[in-house]
């Protein structure tokens, strides 16, 4: 039975090195040709998709690292819509609905409902790996 990896990231990008670990883990999954069905950002992890984050120049740029991963792996990065809005990460559509000047959701990330995580988890081969 082949595993269908579901990657859940809930760690804050500012307070934890879990994002770096997750990217290393994902890269090795991709190299081993494992199947990754879903990469889902929930809770404080959604803040990594905020383009307004400007980490100091001598610290790792997590957003850049995720974008690079998304570009090379072609696996979609999903951020929970409710968790994102609660933490001030909004896309163009929400910005225009709320008459806010600019959106801050990075490219390569898409807003998704928890239903997409739940659907991925209900696959009988789903193997959940959680970075918190």
């Amino acid at each position: 039975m082949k595993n269908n990896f579901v990657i859940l990231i809930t760690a804050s990008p500012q307070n934890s090195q879990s994002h770096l670990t997750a990217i290393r883990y994902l890269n090795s999954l991709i190299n081993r040709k494992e199947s990754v069905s879903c990469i889902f950002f929930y809770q404080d992890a959604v803040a990594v998709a905020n383009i307004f984050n400007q980490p100091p120049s001598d610290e790792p740029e997590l957003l850049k690292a995720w974008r690079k991963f998304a570009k090379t792996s072609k696996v979609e990065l999903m951020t929970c819509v409710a968790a994102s809005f609660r933490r001030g990460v909004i896309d163009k559509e929400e910005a225009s609905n709320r008459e806010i000047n600019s959106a801050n959701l990075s490219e390569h990330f898409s807003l998704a409902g928890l239903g997409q995580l739940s659907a991925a988890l209900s696959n009988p081969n789903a193997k959940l790996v959680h970075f918190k």
Partner: protein
Amino acid sequence: MINIVIHQTALTNASFKESIDLALVCAAFDQKVNLIFVDNGVYNLMTKQNYQSIGDKNHLDILKGLEFYDIENIYVEEESLENRKISKNKLIESCKILSINEIKRLHEKSNQVVSL
């Protein structure tokens, strides 16, 4: 079957709310959901909470309404209650007490365990 484990109080951070959101969505997608309260998470089940006094939302109402969304299995860990000297009659009626070992067996039986 999915087990969702709640470790913290609703007042600590958004984990409680976001665990309940996940539980509701999984139930809506026809998954059998077990909500398991352990550690300080058990405080969420106490009936005498007064959120109004601190201007917060009443989180207890969410728990009371869960059975209408097909979440009927609310479990609370016996040892966590004992450590905190909380007796069963202080908790909402819909929760069932399980020992650590019973919870372990429940994890073994379930397809996924999520602990936010």
